[in-house]
């Protein structure tokens, strides 16, 4: 069983939003809602400024609060590590939305259930990359199997300093960020 993960190499991201549109088209995300976004953070004063561009999405946590807080058992952690949703069991109570520290979930109001990034499981099943990864202009998003030492994600994590978002939340994310040049600490 593969152990899926994503690496976001922020050095490569140019905030072009191709991932955002591809995701919405692939997954029929309703207007006004997003499964992924790109955040632009700027610090400092002119002309001494520093910028961070950060793609955000569901972290497919190994310790997922959305799953623990789901009262109906709709949210679950699949064997391959993806955090997914049994739509027919969801009652739209928003417990998962409230418990996600990454603001990665939304209620699909047209269909009536909670929704979020699935790493495009439908594409993975066909042997394709998630839509955001496939179209990523900067090749900033990398997807693959952590258990396969030859995979692009394993190589990226082996070679580069990386971190996760809100490590202190204890969620054990499966989305890793390479912010800067440097080898793992």
């Amino acid at each position, binding site marked *: 069983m593969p152990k899926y993960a994503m690496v976001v*190499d922020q*050095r*490569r*991201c*140019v*905030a*072009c*939003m*191709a991932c*955002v*549109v*591809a995701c*919405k*088209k*692939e997954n*029929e995300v309703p*207007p*006004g809602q997003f499964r992924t976004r790109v955040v*632009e953070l*700027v610090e*400092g*004063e*002119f*002309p001494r*400024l*520093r*910028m961070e*561009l950060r793609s955000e999405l569901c972290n497919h946590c190994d310790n997922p609060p959305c799953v623990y807080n789901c009262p109906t058992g709709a949210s679950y952690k699949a064997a391959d590590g993806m955090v997914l949703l049994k739509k*027919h069991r969801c*009652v*739209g109570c928003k417990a998962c939305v409230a418990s996600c520290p990454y603001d990665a979930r939304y*209620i*699909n*109001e*047209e*269909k*009536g*259930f909670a929704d979020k990034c699935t790493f495009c499981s*439908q594409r993975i099943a066909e042997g394709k990359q998630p839509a955001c990864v*496939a*179209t*990523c*202009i*900067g*090749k*900033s998003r990398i997807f693959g199997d952590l258990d396969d030492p030859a995979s692009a994600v394993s190589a990226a994590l082996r070679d580069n300093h990386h971190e996760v978002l809100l490590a202190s939340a204890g969620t054990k994310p499966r989305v890793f960020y390479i912010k800067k*040049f440097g080898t793992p600490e």
Partner: protein
Amino acid sequence: MKFSRRTFLKASGAAGCSLAAYAALPEKFLLWAEEQGMLKASYVPTFCEICFWKCGAMAKVLNGRVVKLEGNPAHPGARGKLCARGNGGAGLLYDPNRLKTPLIRTGARGEQKYRKATWDEALDLIASKLKRIKAESGPESVALFTHGTPTDHFLPLLFAYGSPNVGMPSFAQCRGPRDVGLELTFGEGIGSPERVDLTRSKVLVLFGSHLGENMHNSQVQDFADALAAGSKLIVVDPRFSIAAGKAHSWLPIRPATDLALMLAWIHVIIKEQLYDKAYLDSYATGFAELAEAVSDCTPEWAAKETDLSAESIVETARLLGHNAPNVCIHPGRHATWYGDDVQRSRAIGILAALLGSWGREGGYFLATRSSLPKLEGKPFPEPVKAPLNLGNFPFAGAEGVTQEIRRATLTGEPYPIKGWIVTGTNLMKAMPNQKETVEAINKLDLLVVVDVMPTDTAMMADVILPECTYLERHDALAVGKGRSLSISLRQPALQPLYDSKPGWWIAKQIANRLDLGDYFPWQTLEEKIQAQCALWGVNYQELKKVGTITIPDSANPYITADAPAEFKTGSGKIELYSKELKEKGFDPVPRYTRHPGPRPGEFRLVYGRSPVHTFSRTANNPELHELYPENEVWINSGKAKELGVKNGEYVVLVNQDGVRSNRIKAKVTQRIRTDCVYVVHGFGAASKGLSRAFAKGADDQGMITRYAVDPICGSTGMHVNFVRVEKEGVHA
């Protein structure tokens, strides 16, 4: 539908007992059916038209609907990827605001009142007016304004009709001065896509170019690869762009002084002998004259002009020199800034020559020398009157100088222009000084606009013809002359919606009505494409399946011992000193001119791109509008505080001639100098037919009432307007 627990139960109950619930959601049903293996999506290869990069795309078609677009892995401009706009291409296809039938104007020009017409009625009307203009004034009195693939159909129509007067905003309002400057230096331009060898650059320089925000698919892929490989990036920009955020050196230059910085770099590189002497000895001429001309362009002098430190100028010059020849100073694309833009492009060319980077790894690679034979057709008639679309500019390009046609339309000199055909360009948003454009249009006997959307320009037309989108039509084969020679096919993913028609059909129909059918001697464009494929030895059936064919062994990217460089200049060498320019009375070596700056209380208006929009073309696209529905005006935090303007608050821009903009949100930020404000181009649509884009954001072109014409090639510098920022509702 707002979700509530009740509606949710209803919907899920219905879905549980029958498929009827899906009837209201046919697309969802189809996706579900696809998941069950009941339906198979097909992928139709074509190429994108949301911008001009022409990326190979695969249209995923499910039961007659384009549900997704993906990059074609075989295409050199896409490499399997599409940008946000390309991903959102179906937003254009299914935009309910599309032009659906031919329309004939019923109100006054600009009143936006039209009635529906049949194709026969609309085409007959156009043909009768074109015949009358030809009889009364001569065929030269009709002009074509065009951009993109429609050009392949309508330019032959114009030439067959007998007029040479074409104007493409892509020249005088965009790339023109860049290409002319490089042609004068190297004997050829940089091409499109630009032949910049970014992935091998050790140092990369961007002047104003904001790659990333300015989205050119394969070039941005290369840019990211270069960054990841640790290339040093120098960004010269008054704004802390996304690219500046990635830079090792951000030089927040005073706008309009770029040429001073370039000349100082040349000065340092010569003074410190950082140039490639062997390369210059072999390939260049005019070094002594160049050295003499820049002898007083010291870093200290440039520092005063540019508002940068002399140290940073010297340091960056040395970085270029020490990494030569693997240095790429990007020549930019939209280069019409200050009216001395050819000379700025020349300065970039001269730097490239000094560093020996033209035709070298990490600099600029050479275009393929391979070419394809032309499919011969009936020769066009020779116009009787001389073209007026080049004005009196000795180096105007064949794409024409749009505002010269506009001027002739207004003045009747050197001869009157009575009819305009406009295809693939929104002139009201592309050309400076809209008032002049409106006055010229009001003088016309005929304005025909062929477009997909009811643009601001379409809404001025006498007859509007609805072209179908790129996903519904064939177009001419796209021959890419980049590193290798490539051929790409545009083919319909589905039949045209509504009563829209392909551009080729429209051009052919007009030609038939003017007894010019011989120039379009095929029934369908596909026939012509097949004939071309046969001529070129390309298997058409294969091309239909793969979308793009790259001709093997057609690349010759670098100067080698076996393939020395050739320069098609007068001297056969790289011209550091240009005799051609000297002969025509221009500076043979670029010379800096100080341009007027903002008066107290004013800001220079600079504009640029968003990665999710192409000009004004995508402002109404529902899928892209969602991400960036209206532009913002970037204003320095300190200045905003002085003016009492808060972030996110609506303000109004008022230019030096008193023209007021639509309201626009203020983006109060540290990311811009105090002497300029910045907006993304293409917003503030005036067409009521664009339900999302209408009056959203400010139209930068409306503020560009003044422009500085480059005397060398006729291009219009448009970064020469100044605005005050007023709080909404406050009238001066």
